[in-house]
């Protein structure tokens, strides 16, 4: 492989990761506020179908993306209403919504299968696109990819560098404390869940109008991505930057799978295609195992040298969810 080929390949990894990125960042924001939006797998499919249908009938890419965001926000509203107002299990409601939205996408999307529709073109950044190496990698992308860079940065700045962001951390970690300080916890949870849902809703059109343009029904190959995005959110430890790293790692692995497939004809393609999933389990294991009691006991039995190394490694990988994740809040 030449340098140019590798650069183009890596640029395609950045582009392919964009939809997953929206999903992961949207979920991170929602979970930071204490609400798990488990419907993501269905939301992505429904917003992919809906965004494509809107863009095709209106011949407007912008309306397509907005349509996807509206769908994502509406699904998130159902999650928020059922869990915050009606006190039902977020996991239960989210799982059911994941199924409803997926089947709804297949049902309503039937007339749009294999139709040709608008597609987002690459938009090289004037001047910067000509910069050697970096130009090919970063500045010869679609607007969607640029937007994905922006969303990572904005989410990170918002959560860690602003006052309202601090409050967002508070309502996910210690809602009672946030309430005492004058925050309307449940209203903020509604707001952030819907905002997160709208960002998740960008993921669908990013596929159907850009990365995997078109709607192919059950063979769209999008079923399952939402579940992966949920796992990446955990891997990301509810930090947008670490989550972005996870999403890029995942896209990189998929690309490597494709590259290796052509050079390793003896390995069945099915094996390489699922390689990310065992790796996903493994990473979750590494992220979580530091919290397990038996690990602490085993570590205590180790000699000091290796113990320090392993402890440091596990601590670097470890991530703990917002303390009030999934727990309803009552002010009285």
């Amino acid at each position, binding site marked *: 492989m030449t340098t140019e080929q590798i650069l183009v390949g890596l640029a395609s990894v950045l582009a392919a990761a964009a939809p997953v990125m929206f999903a992961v960042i949207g979920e991170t924001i929602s979970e930071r506020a204490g609400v798990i939006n488990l419907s993501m797998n269905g939301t992505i499919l429904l917003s992919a179908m809906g965004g494509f249908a809107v863009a095709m009938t209106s011949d407007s890419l912008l309306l397509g993306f907005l349509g996807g965001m509206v769908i994502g926000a509406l699904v998130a509203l159902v999650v928020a209403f059922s869990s915050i107002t009606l006190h039902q299990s977020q996991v239960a409601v989210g799982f059911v919504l994941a199924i409803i939205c997926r089947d709804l996408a297949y049902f309503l999307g039937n007339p749009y299968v294999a139709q040709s529709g608008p597609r987002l073109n690459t938009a090289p950044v004037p001047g910067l696109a000509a910069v050697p190496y970096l130009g090919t990698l970063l500045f010869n992308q679609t607007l969607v990819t640029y937007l994905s860079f922006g969303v990572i940065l904005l989410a990170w700045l918002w959560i860690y560098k602003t006052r309202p962001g601090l409050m967002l951390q508070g309502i996910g970690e210690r809602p009672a404390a946030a309430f005492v300080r004058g925050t309307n916890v449940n209203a903020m949870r509604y707001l952030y869940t819907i905002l997160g849902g709208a960002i998740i809703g960008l993921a669908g059109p990013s596929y159907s109008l850009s990365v995997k343009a078109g709607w192919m029904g059950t063979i769209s190959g999008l079923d399952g991505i939402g579940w992966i995005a949920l796992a990446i959110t955990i891997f990301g430890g509810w930090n947008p930057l670490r989550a972005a790293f996870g999403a890029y790692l995942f896209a990189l692995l998929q690309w490597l799978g494709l590259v290796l497939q052509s050079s390793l004809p003896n390995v069945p393609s099915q*094996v390489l295609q699922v390689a990310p999933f065992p790796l996903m389990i493994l990473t979750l294991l590494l992220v979580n195992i530091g919290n397990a009691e038996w690990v602490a006991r085993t570590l205590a039995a180790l000699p000091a040298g290796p113990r320090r190394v392993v402890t440091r490694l596990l601590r670097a990988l470890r991530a703990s969810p917002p303390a009030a994740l999934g727990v309803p809040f009552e002010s009285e």
Partner: protein
Amino acid sequence: MAKNTAASRRRKTIWINVSFQSAAFVLALLLTTVMLLAVGAPPFQAYRSILVGAFGSVGDIFDTLIAWAPLLLTTMGVLITFSAGLWNIGIEGQVTLGAIFTTWILRLLQESGLPPWLIIVLGILAGIVGGALWASLAGVLKTFGGVNEIFGGLGLNFVATALTLWLIFGPWKRPGTGSMSGTLPFPEELWLPAIPGFRLSPWALVLSFIAVVVVYFLLRGTHFGLRLKAVGKNMRAAYLLGVPTWQHMLASFLLCGVFAGLAGALQVTAVYHRLIPSISSNYGFTGLLVAMLVNFHALWAVPVALFFAALNIGSVHLPIVLKLDSSLSGVLQGLLVLLVLMVEGARQRLMSRKIIPAEPASGEEVQS
């Protein structure tokens, strides 16, 4: 006198519950109807087509019963994990592994000269082992690795599907080239005996009814079931009271895997007679929906699973008759569960505001 009012209040509660649940059902139907009208499809004809497809002829009824058996099994499985407070989404993969193990043993023994009935029994037992092994993998990840069972299970589902595809296109491929239609069908003497002229095997139904009875008594009348529920309701309290929590969680995974593996074994020995790519046929996820709807009551799962199986079988004809996608059944099933959850939430909210008289605390059907 006091007893009398308690009884009448209880009757009233049951009546309120039933009316709220019916409201959820009507709402789900209403929403689906609006959706059908929105896409320009005749709702009445669509529902009629589903009904005719599920119950229109003896063959159709038998097809519905064929789908009923594995759905009952997966529902019973997830009822056990639900009791322990676990979301065993990995059940799809556990069904798949059951089917793979059964296929493996049938392939291994089909030339062995053993009596066919023995091969079938061994095959089904292998399926049970396969399902239990795959479930215990998710269980170990959960109890020792701290990996949430939802994500461990989902990952294992994808791996199970890939394993199936690899076997069908690789080591177990049909003579010549592998195809999406699955492995070569087994000879007829290795099929679970069916009603002559039809595909329905009464054995499959018998096994799933046994499963219902077992789970019903397990959850209602045994110490193990009680401790399982204790772990599910409040793990910390259960642990402090001396219930070995991780053992119970792992056991619930294993048991769920047993039922899931049995469902997979039946898919191979009684339904498809070979391994196909989508061998689990979504029965795991549908079983989760049924289990959510029946709220821990194993016996209620019997009619609800029949209804869901009828929806699935009936909707198969929709693309041919009305050019509609068969996923309509999934939408209706999902909406039904979602609305029951939401209506239940609304009922609790209304009751806490004393608009509706509160339930007696001793009411058996109170499930928080």
